[in-house]
């Protein structure tokens, strides 16, 4: 018996409707478009190979020819008490590991730093002038051919931050696909973009030459890890020692033509991978990707499940050596607070172009803001309370939960959102959330306090590894007209 029989029936009805329009319309057009794209790509690659231009980085890549360009700063003005915080002076160090790029030129490297919010962060890039940075190529920085050093407060490296543990260690891992060889993020120049024309699957379509894309694995495994076994560009496996007390590793491979690093039966590289598994992955455990095993000081070896297997969803090589930060968890009684609700009805709402926050706005959009469009008409609600404890870093946070009334028109189960900033004892804490008008009735909600109890990502979301049990602070209810 189905758990949600109405959903099943709706899907089958939708499949009937979809099937009715598919044969002549939806399938034929994309098929032709994809075929012609492939053909163009194939011709381009063949031409490049014939001309000896497969490695487009050659002209720019010789070490030492770069001039220093403008630094790469954070997208949002950094604050020592918000989000990642800011780098603590004296903790920023360029790790000694250097990894050659498949096309040559400046090596890749990692810089590690500690932040004011109790995080350890890694910055990934090419190395020159004794620091990490991005190259002005691949469409980034107007192709100025310069080396752009990263600001110490640049925290956009995916999965690049994790809470520092009780011994000053952090455990983080990332597997990034289709990164530009410039070192930069895909948004700064070419890269890969999600193809959403066929639905919600992240099918990636390179927007720059494949030879300019890289598959990158990096991470910090802690002092107990001694080596990683990983794929190489030739398809073989290699074992490389980790670097320093952080247990750092970095692997840079050329673009996998099928988009995923799965050794096939004969262990040739690259091989195929499911569409849904493409994209960046990471966290405190070692994700499936270029790394196939981690060896620890005590001799035990952890094998990483191959990408594409269901085990890869649940099984990662877990962090070894995490030491919890000594802290006493507050009780629910010590946290309990009265929750206030303020409705902010408006015809439209605006949000800052950079940073967080949303509020009602009239005909005029304030400078630096943008009007929110799309989605269902919604009511903005502000939930607030007075914190009875202090939150001094990213190792704990408050969580807001809303559960919508059940009705024929309401298809959204609920909203949820965490705080991600330091809070003083006695400080007023608030969060604004949208409730769609198609969910009329009583909306119920709660506020909880969530401590970190194990290795975690820098993203404060209950349910992710390392997040402790939510401790109730208070609950509330309000009516949506």
């Amino acid at each position, binding site marked *: 018996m189905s758990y949600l029989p109405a959903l099943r029936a709706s899907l089958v009805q939708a499949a009937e409707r979809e099937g009715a329009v598919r044969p002549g319309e939806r399938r034929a057009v994309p098929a032709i478009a994809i075929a012609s794209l492939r053909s163009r790509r194939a011709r381009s690659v063949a031409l490049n190979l014939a001309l000896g231009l497969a490695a487009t980085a050659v002209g720019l890549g010789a070490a030492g020819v770069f001039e220093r360009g403008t630094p790469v700063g954070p997208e949002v003005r950094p604050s020592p008490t918000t989000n990642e915080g800011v780098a603590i002076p004296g903790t920023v160090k360029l790790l000694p590991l250097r990894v050659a790029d498949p096309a040559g030129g400046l090596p890749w490297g990692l810089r590690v730093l500690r932040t004011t919010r109790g995080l350890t962060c890694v910055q990934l890039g090419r190395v020159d002038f004794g620091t990490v940075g991005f190259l002005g190529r691949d469409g980034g920085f107007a192709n100025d051919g310069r080396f752009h050093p990263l600001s110490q407060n640049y925290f956009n490296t995916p999965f690049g931050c994790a809470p520092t543990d009780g011994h000053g260690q952090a455990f983080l891992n990332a597997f990034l696909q289709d990164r530009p060889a410039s070192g930069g993020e895909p948004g700064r120049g070419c890269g890969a973009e999600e193809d959403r024309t066929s639905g919600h699957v992240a099918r990636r379509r390179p927007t720059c030459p494949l030879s300019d894309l890289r598959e990158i694995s990096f991470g910090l495994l802690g002092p107990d890890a001694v080596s990683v076994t990983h794929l190489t560009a030739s398809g073989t496996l290699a074992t490389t020692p980790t670097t320093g007390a952080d247990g750092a590793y970095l692997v840079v491979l050329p673009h996998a033509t099928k988009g995923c690093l799965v050794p096939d039966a004969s262990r040739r590289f690259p091989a195929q991978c499911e569409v849904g598994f493409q994209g960046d992955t990471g966290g405190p455990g070692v994700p499936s990707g270029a790394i196939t095993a981690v060896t620890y000081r005590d001799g035990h070896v952890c094998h990483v499940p191959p990408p594409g297997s*269901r085990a890869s969803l649940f099984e990662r090589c877990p962090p070894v050596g995490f030491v919890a930060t000594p802290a006493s968890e507050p009780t629910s009684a010590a946290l309990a607070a009265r929750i206030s609700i303020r409705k902010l009805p408006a015809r439209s709402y605006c949000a800052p172009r950079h940073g967080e926050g949303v509020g009602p706005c009239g005909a005029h959009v304030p400078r630096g803001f943008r009007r929110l469009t799309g989605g269902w008409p919604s009511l903005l609600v502000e939930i607030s309370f007075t914190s009875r404890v202090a939150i001094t870093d990213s190792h704990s946070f408050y969580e807001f939960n809303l559960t919508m009334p059940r009705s024929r028109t309401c298809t959204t189960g609920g909203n949820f959102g965490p705080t991600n900033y330091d809070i003083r004892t006695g400080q007023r804490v608030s969060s604004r959330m949208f409730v769609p008008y198609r969910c009329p009735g009583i909306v119920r909600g709660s506020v909880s306090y969530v401590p970190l109890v194990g290795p975690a990502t820098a993203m404060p979301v209950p349910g992710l590894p390392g997040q402790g049990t939510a401790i109730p602070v208070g609950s509330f209810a309000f009516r949506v007209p």
Partner: protein
Amino acid sequence: MARVRYETATDAELLARTGDDAEAFGAFYDRFEAQLLAFFWHATRRADLAADLTAETFAAALESSPSFRPELGSARAWLFGIARHELADAWAHERVEDRARRRLGLDPLTLTDAALERIEELGSGDSRALELLDDLPADQRIAIAARVVDERGYAELAQSLSCSPSVVRQRVSRGLRGLRARLEQAQ
């Protein structure tokens, strides 16, 4: 297509038939509904969010079914890939999306208390097994997850774990014994 044909069809065949036979997608739904609900419950610890995310995942899968290519991997892995993206989207935007459902014009999802309770039971049972699995030695945990959860063959596992098939069998056997003992202790 007769009912018996759905039962013997592979996951990929069900997806391939969806364009011509809507009930094939219903059969595909039946195979993965509980697994997806448990997966999302484990991630969010909320039955309503698990149901919401499951609905959006199946809607996205229905939309994308014409682009599914069995030569690139299993339908199960493809579906869970979509699920993981839906989950990541929900975390990133702090809300469950309903774009695919709106595009398909799906009926609104009505959740009864009984349905929510059943999802809670499903998820918490799954969660306990997973938690107990975590207590096993790494080699046994990996072997069980790959063999029992992922249903991969011993020969394939032996290759990816760089050991003989008999060693994999031994690890699975020992792991299951350990898991049973832990379950008995827990009850």
